[in-house]
């Protein structure tokens, strides 16, 4: 999933949908691109609100600058 600009509600819906899957054999990588420190805190707090088993398979890596294609 890729969102642009500030859409925390859309991210929340994506996280809820993933956390509800009957198959939980996956990892979640979140790559906030050129996001402010405040935004990073907001995204991390959103992830941390989910059950610990979901948080355990989620990781967040801040990305700065142009992404290689």
């Amino acid at each position: 999933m890729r969102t642009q600009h500030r859409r925390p509600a859309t991210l929340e819906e994506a996280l809820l949908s993933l956390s509800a899957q009957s198959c939980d054999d996956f990892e979640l990588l979140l790559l906030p691109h050129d996001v402010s420190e405040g935004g990073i805190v907001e995204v991390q707090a959103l992830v941390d609100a989910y059950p610990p088993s979901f948080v355990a398979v989620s990781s967040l890596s801040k990305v700065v600058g142009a992404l290689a294609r």
Partner: protein
Amino acid sequence: MTSARGSAPPALTVQTVLYGHSLEEVRRWVVGVANAVRVERARGVVGPVSLRIGDSSPGRTLSQLQVEQMCEEFEPWGVIGVAYEHFEANLGSAGGHNRLFELDGAPYFLILNPDAMASPFLLGELLAAAQDTTVGIAEARQLPLEHPKAYDLRTGDTSWASGAGCLVRSEVFAQLGGYDAESFFLYCDDVDLSWRVRLAGFRVVLQPSARIFHDKRLDLDAVVVSGEAELYYSAEAALMLAWKYSRPDLVDEWLEHFLTSPMHQWVDAANAFTKRRSEGTLPAPIDPEGRVAQFFGMHFARHRYSYSD
């Protein structure tokens, strides 16, 4: 802990009714609800929360030991108790919720389907909507298939609230005698409750920021996948709703439609309805002026779209 208004946050009960669900599915439901309790108790927006699980399955889904283990596991998350009752009979959704409900001093209770996963923020968002004392039921928004029924974008007002996930004002539920389980075994019990709540002068609102993931699926024609029981009981419920809300014209129209259908579930439902009508066991019709009841074909609210458009 105090709410934003300075008063103690409200206690809450969350209840669900099982039928043929696996232990894994029940556990996923409990984890979702308990996690929402953990998050919202930490924010101080909800007080003590207890869970009530009713079971209409032929056999017990949970052992006493498993219930005790759940109590122990989720007590640190703020869940003060998990009660489990095996009904020893299939009471249906409406009958099951009526059995579980108690006027225990909590101002609201949450009805949440066992195949629905609560958002971490579900409780706070629904309680925010219900703080308005004119609201009798606050409904959660379903993902991934958002219900197509219309609602007022400004106020949230809607014709009826889905029992898949909704917060109900306890005193109103008690005042109305709960669901009409005699008339609605599996479907439209929520439509009927919503309409009686509105007839009693309360509002029914959708709170779009209160999210649940409801495990519904579409087939290749974008039609919600239905089982045998759903086909039968949804037809029976539609006839019952038209009858109860004083629309004999629709009863006649739909009876003919069902009786001439190639689907035996619809024929059976029409025959069962006709039998009850001849026996005089149907409910007394209400809302003769159509103050709250809405019929758009076999939809009970105006729909914004259909999944197959």
